[in-house]
């Protein structure tokens, strides 16, 4: 079966983890990795695995994109450079899967709304944040049962798994996640909190989701909806688990999640990276399927 050629922009934790997952894909063929540091470990690994690499940013890859038939790019850099990266690769006729919190394109949380993006010719979709991928399915699991007036998520990740991009732009994390708790999760008002915990050995990613329902929660229906949603997420993140709950306390519904990664690049505690890269890849695979089936035709802009 033919695969769609893809490029990984960003050679840090996310980009490198994504590389290993993409190499296993039936739909995606990673051919380029873009970095900005010649000594980057991610670039070295990519070269060893047969990818073309550049340490000159997206500009180092752009002249080769058409020749190498790159039709899908993943941006794992930062919100601040995403806009430029996006413009440059779209000019070359590539779709952009945005793993930064830039949120230029519509949010995509695969088990909740991936299907909504099919056939819409979206050229840029945003994967929200790791905290968003881990929690928004739970908010949606409650809001599809009954109206949620307020959704709040607390994402706790080990310090070791939070890269410099996340740290420097931590506001983008909370703002983007809170926005997606509303837009994708279906809560009327959203709030997001992130905690970086430096404990050694590093703690596994934990996510707490609090929903306030408008009316008294239907406990049986919500519990079943949550269990079903967990199974959907487990299809691409097997280590996504309910640790405690759901707790019902008045109109408060709380679930305590744990996310164990596959350990592709970083160790298993970094479930936050895993759920992000797995969701990004799953989204890309859906677009790849559309391209291969001829339902999505990409046209480079005339220069």
């Amino acid at each position, binding site marked *: 079966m033919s695969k769609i050629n893809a490029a990984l922009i960003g050679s840090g934790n996310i980009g490198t983890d994504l590389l290993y997952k993409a190499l296993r894909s039936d739909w995606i063929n990673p051919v380029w990795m873009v970095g900005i540091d010649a000594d980057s470990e991610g670039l070295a690994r990519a070269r060893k695995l047969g990818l073309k690499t550049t340490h000159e940013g997206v500009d180092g890859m752009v002249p080769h994109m058409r020749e190498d038939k790159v039709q899908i790019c993943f941006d794992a850099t930062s919100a601040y450079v995403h806009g430029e990266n996006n413009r440059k690769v779209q000019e070359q006729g590539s779709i952009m899967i945005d793993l930064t919190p830039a949120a230029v394109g519509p949010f995509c949380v695969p088990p909740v709304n991936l299907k909504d993006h099919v056939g819409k010719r979206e050229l840029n979709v945003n994967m929200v944040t790791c905290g968003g991928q881990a929690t928004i399915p739970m908010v949606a699991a409650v809001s599809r049962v009954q109206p949620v007036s307020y959704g709040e998520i607390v994402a*706790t990740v080990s310090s070791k798994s939070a890269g410099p991009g996340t*740290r420097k732009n931590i506001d983008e994390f909370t*703002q983007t996640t809170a926005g997606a708790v509303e837009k994708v999760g279906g809560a009327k008002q959203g709030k997001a909190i992130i905690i970086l915990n430096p404990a050694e050995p590093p703690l596994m990613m934990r996510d707490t989701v609090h929903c306030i329902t408008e009316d008294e929660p239907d406990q049986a229906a919500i519990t079943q909806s949550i269990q079903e949603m967990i199974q959907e997420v487990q299809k691409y993140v097997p280590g996504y688990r309910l640790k405690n709950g759901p707790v019902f306390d008045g109109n408060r519904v709380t679930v305590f999640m744990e996310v164990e990664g596959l350990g592709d690049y970083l160790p298993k505690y970094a479930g936050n990276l895993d759920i992000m890269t797995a969701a990004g890849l799953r989204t890309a695979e859906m677009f790849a399927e559309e391209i291969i089936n001829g339902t999505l035709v990409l046209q480079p802009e005339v220069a």
Partner: protein
Amino acid sequence: MNLNGKKITIHDMSLRDGMHAKRHQISLEQMISVASGLDAAGVPMIEVTHGDGLAGASVNYGFPAHTDEEYLRAVRPHVKNAKISALLLPGIGTVPELEMAADCGVDTIRVATHCTEADVSEQHITKSRELGLDTVGFLMMAHMVGPEKLIEQARLMEGYGANCIYVTDSAGYMLPDDVTLRLKAVREALQPETELGFHGHHNLSLGVINSLAAVEAGANRIDGSAAGMGAGAGNTPLEVFVAVTERMGVETGVDLFKLMDVAEDLVVPMLDQPIRVDRDALTLGYAGVYSSFLLFAKRAQQRYGVSSRDVLVELGRRGMIGGQEDMIEDVAMEMAKAQGVLQ
């Protein structure tokens, strides 16, 4: 200990850290009355925010009686001389809330991170300096790391533009020698013009002596609360600290008797429970656990029938840090399941 002639700046926490003890339910009238009293007593700095800082309003930390903006706008016109500060924890609060606080007329922004995570404070410290505000970098749970790490983190915050760095004993765990070691090291590492502060909790009844040790080691800003109203067994009781420093010849500019009256006549009558070293507060100080976990652990005991002390010890063992209030219910449920009292 000879502190004679030293000049220090006292910073009152009762209307921010005290919010924890009040489950964030302080009324606007109480805020105005305490802030006016502190101002009249010559307390030079007063913090006003949700206990967990700007945008702390949440299921996780508790919804306050009023928004940060309502509190700040209510208090500001009644405070004539004191500076008003707002706390911000990156990961909870964001730059737009900081700008809101500046618009409300705060003089000082204190950006608080866990003692190893200073690099999440760059956006906020930079913005605060841009707005021309007195800007503090606040390193929490500082007992968990040694002086070398604190120096590295303090320098990061100083590099972003903080003109004052705090070493914060959020768990009330430090012994006086722990304070001396850390404060001396950080003092030597910072630029001479950068101020140094200490924020204590009274869980081992060491708030006053630890603050004195901090002054001796070079700190010139000291946090405390009227009547100690704060998380855990409270902050350093300010009126006690001012009485002691006055006898030692330290200049604070605070009128001791007026401050005593604020504590006794305004703050104590507000308390929902006495601020004291009870069994759970002592456990915080003994096990090195974030002080604002106190009331959450007591509620978990009520709901799940497990010992709040055991929950707190377990949270400490797991290395939980400030802001992880969600893990209190999680740990309590896990313990209740293990004991067979929860399915």
